[in-house]
């Protein structure tokens, strides 16, 4: 048998094209090399050649799963440059959409993880629940993916039926607590596949700069929503789940608990939503200068740097996504694991290579 086993660029376990080459000894993995770049579409280059309104739609397509995160961070960077205040109602709507996106992203991930360990029924259950979130997002934004909700100074669409949003959040919370979390944590075959697999210790997570749920599953309590609150997060009551084990099961549990917390956040944000305008005007002039913005996306910290010369086209847009930080830890985690674990371990960081490649 050939000693190097390529996984990808097109592989059933991978949603996206990228390649892991495994130096194997039978089924045991000795070393892994990751190749990315299949999704490189030169988005930053394009962003420097389009005006700010066009760039909003462009950065939304950095990633189809966490699209809202990108427009939100980009808008926040522009607001910082322009010195614009976002109306309170718009802030609440932003938080609702932001957390709804976290819900669908985490449910999607839970489904993919179940699929990767061959647990089709659980995959279907997660995706069936996810459809509720998709309906919510479609009702609010008019599209299931790529919501186009944010713009500098506010949001584009109002939430007309807050009752429905709160009810959906509650239904998802109940279903998570009653169905999905118990199966993931107690089912014996799931435990056999996930517990103790792909361990990333706290020190390694720190040294390799892991972000988001991956870091939190390794015992690092880091979350931008707590560390540097944006929008209305400083006024909301929510927990940041942290697990010390650092294995795949811990990552599952952290994300599952985050879903529950996100539902609580949505309920609170809808509850306290004030009346008022939802934006601060249509075309907001962006003066010369530079700004950074960062927020906590579903996969971890998303970072934007925008430089402007005062025209309507940015000088530079720099995007750093969480997978860029988390991806190298895969090579660390798959060592001395079996071949069967590799798809699961790579999936456990919730990789988004279209984010990383841009």
């Amino acid at each position: 048998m050939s000693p190097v086993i390529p996984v990808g660029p097109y592989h059933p376990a991978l949603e996206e094209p990228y390649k892991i080459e495994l130096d194997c000894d039978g089924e045991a993995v000795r070393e892994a090399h990751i190749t990315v770049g299949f999704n490189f579409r030169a988005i930053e280059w394009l962003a420097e050649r389009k005006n700010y309104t066009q760039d909003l739609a462009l950065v939304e397509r950095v990633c189809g799963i966490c699209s809202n995160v990108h427009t939100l961070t980009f808008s926040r960077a522009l607001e910082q440059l322009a010195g614009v205040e976002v109306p309170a109602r718009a802030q609440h709507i932003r938080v609702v959409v932001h957390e709804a996106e976290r819900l669908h992203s985490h449910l999607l991930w839970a489904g993919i993880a179940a699929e990767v360990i061959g647990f089709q029924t659980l995959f279907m259950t997660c995706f069936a629940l996810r459809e509720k979130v998709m309906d919510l997002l479609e009702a609010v934004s008019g599209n299931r993916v790529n919501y186009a909700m944010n713009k500098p100074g506010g949001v584009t669409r109002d939430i007309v039926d807050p009752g429905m949003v709160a009810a959906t959040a509650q239904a998802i919370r109940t279903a998570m607590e009653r169905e999905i979390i118990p199966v993931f944590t107690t089912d014996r075959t799931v435990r056999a596949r996930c517990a103790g697999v792909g361990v990333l210790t706290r020190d390694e997570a720190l040294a390799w700069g892991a972000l988001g749920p991956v870091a939190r599953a390794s015992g690092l309590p880091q979350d931008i929503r707590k560390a540097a609150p944006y929008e209305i997060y400083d006024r909301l009551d929510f927990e940041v789940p942290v697990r010390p084990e650092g294995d795949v099961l811990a990552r599952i549990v952290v994300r599952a608990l985050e879903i529950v917390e996100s539902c609580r956040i949505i309920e609170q944000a809808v509850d306290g939503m004030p009346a008022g305008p939802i934006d601060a005007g249509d075309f907001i002039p962006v003066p010369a200068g530079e700004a950074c913005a960062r927020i906590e996306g579903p996969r971890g910290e998303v970072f934007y740097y925008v430089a402007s010369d005062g025209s309507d086209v940015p000088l530079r847009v720099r995007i750093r996504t969480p997978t860029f930080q988390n991806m190298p830890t895969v090579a660390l985690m798959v060592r001395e694991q079996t071949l069967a674990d590799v798809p699961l371990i790579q999936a456990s960081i919730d990789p988004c290579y279209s984010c990383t490649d841009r």
Partner: protein
Amino acid sequence: MRLIDSLVRTSRRRSPWLFHLNAGSCNGCDIELVACLTPRYDVEQLGIRLEGSPRHADIIVVSGPVTRTTRAALETVYAQVPDPKVVVALGSCPASCNVFAGSPTVEGPLDRILPVDVYVPGCPPRPDAIIAGIAEAIALLAEGGHA
């Protein structure tokens, strides 16, 4: 002979297997395609299966604007699918490169590289639109795929 012909045609209509190829897409279309498998849409009711190996497939579903790095894979995969076969372009990206038009690393649109039979518009298309597009493709497949 006629009986066999119509049996073959019916079987192609009832059992289209897909191979999905992400040619630099943003994941939006890919996730909506996965959503088609799930309980609400369940494309298995039409006999559709998402296959891991291109050699098993009848319909190639392409999403994304075809980046420079995925072009070679796209051509290989197309050659690996046995005839008759049909190509479905998912979303605006393979149709026109969408927002990525003009990027130096994008070689699309897809019809420059492969013959495309069905376009499904949307960014991304809704699952019911994807199913409608695949249904179009099935009709073409029953007639023996594209020339």
